[in-house]
């Protein structure tokens, strides 16, 4: 799976959310098919709530990991119904 990293450090919400949404919209097909994982780097704490909530509402899986001086917010395809049932 390809991982695309987007460095948004320095941006605050809602600009960071708009940037994230723009990336998610632009890469919708690759994200949905599980070929791509978007990895947003942000040092804005609000973004760790707004981006995951919006991405989850759009049907994506999200993980947030605290790194040294920033947060890594990963957006990826959610497992399918069959995968959930088999897991």
């Amino acid at each position, binding site marked *: 799976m390809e991982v695309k990293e987007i460095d948004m450090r320095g941006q*605050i*919400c*809602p*600009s960071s*959310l*708009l940037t994230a*949404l*723009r990336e*998610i*919209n632009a890469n*919708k097909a690759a994200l949905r098919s599980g070929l791509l994982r978007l990895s947003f780097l942000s040092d804005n704490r*609000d973004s760790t*709530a*707004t981006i995951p*909530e*919006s991405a989850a*509402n*759009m*049907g994506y899986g999200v993980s947030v990991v605290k790194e040294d001086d920033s947060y890594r917010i990963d957006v990826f395809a959610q497992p399918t*119904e069959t995968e959930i049932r088999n897991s």
Partner: protein
Amino acid sequence: MKAFISKLLGDTEETQLVSENRFLREQQFKQVEYIRRKTNQLLMLMGTLPIRPEELDDDTLIETDPIGTVADAFAQILEHEKELNERLRMAHDEIQAILSSVGVGILLLDSSMQIQMYNQKIVELFPLNKDSLIGQTCCHAVCGTSTLPADCTFTRILETRRPYHQSDWVQSGRHFDVAGVPIKNRFGEVTHVVLAYTETTSRVETERRLREREQICLDVFENISDVVQCVTPDGSFLFVNRAWRELLGYLPHEISALKFWNIIAPECRKECMEHFDILMHGERLEDVRTCLLSKDGQEIAVAGQINCSFSNGKPIATFGLFRQLEAGHETPQAKS
């Protein structure tokens, strides 16, 4: 005159241009304000803050098209909601199919005891009106009363917030097993209760008839003059009758401490153990002769028959019916 007209016309053009420019500026201002207002409205719906003017100036705002970005995001949200609704509908259908296929009546009640969902079986078990069932209280629909019964499973679950099983709930002369499970929210509060009813009337009735027949059999065996004993594979006595107790001199409460070899005369024990093994393999023994040992050590010659009952191929108990041999009859020892 010409210059005057020209000046007049020029002034008019300048005035017109100024007026047009002002109009265009006002229009652009309105458009930018509209974009900001609509973008902020959408962003608020997304759960974030409005855009501050210092974050995005007017030119960047138009260039980055935030309305388009958020609108595309909303399109994905709606798409996801549609998929989610489809999955929920399928899950609902699956649950309905499961509820319909089970042989127990199921009710889903909310915390105020009102029926939210039910299956076909519950309508078959109780005389319920399907058309007005949703929203009725369980108390009214099933118990047929407006006051809570003392043994109400729902109330018990609401009080304890734990599953509860009532093994013999009687309603209008019918018996039911009622199992209830609470559904809790993330704060641990009971929001719903699932009640499952299994009618056990025929089982209870069968058990009652079996108990009656068992009692009749016990009375018959208790009162016959022959000695009767039931012995489990480990040698304990399951049942002995009055004739047995009188012949061997034991009181009823002493029987549980006895093993069957305790009441066999020492010289007959080896042969009896062999008989016991034969019985455990399913054979029936006719005309068995042996010597029993009474509580006071007296040997009593008896003859009779023994068989063994089995369940799923495993021996349950031997059943022996003996009569005391009169003096002059051959005992096993006399035979040998």
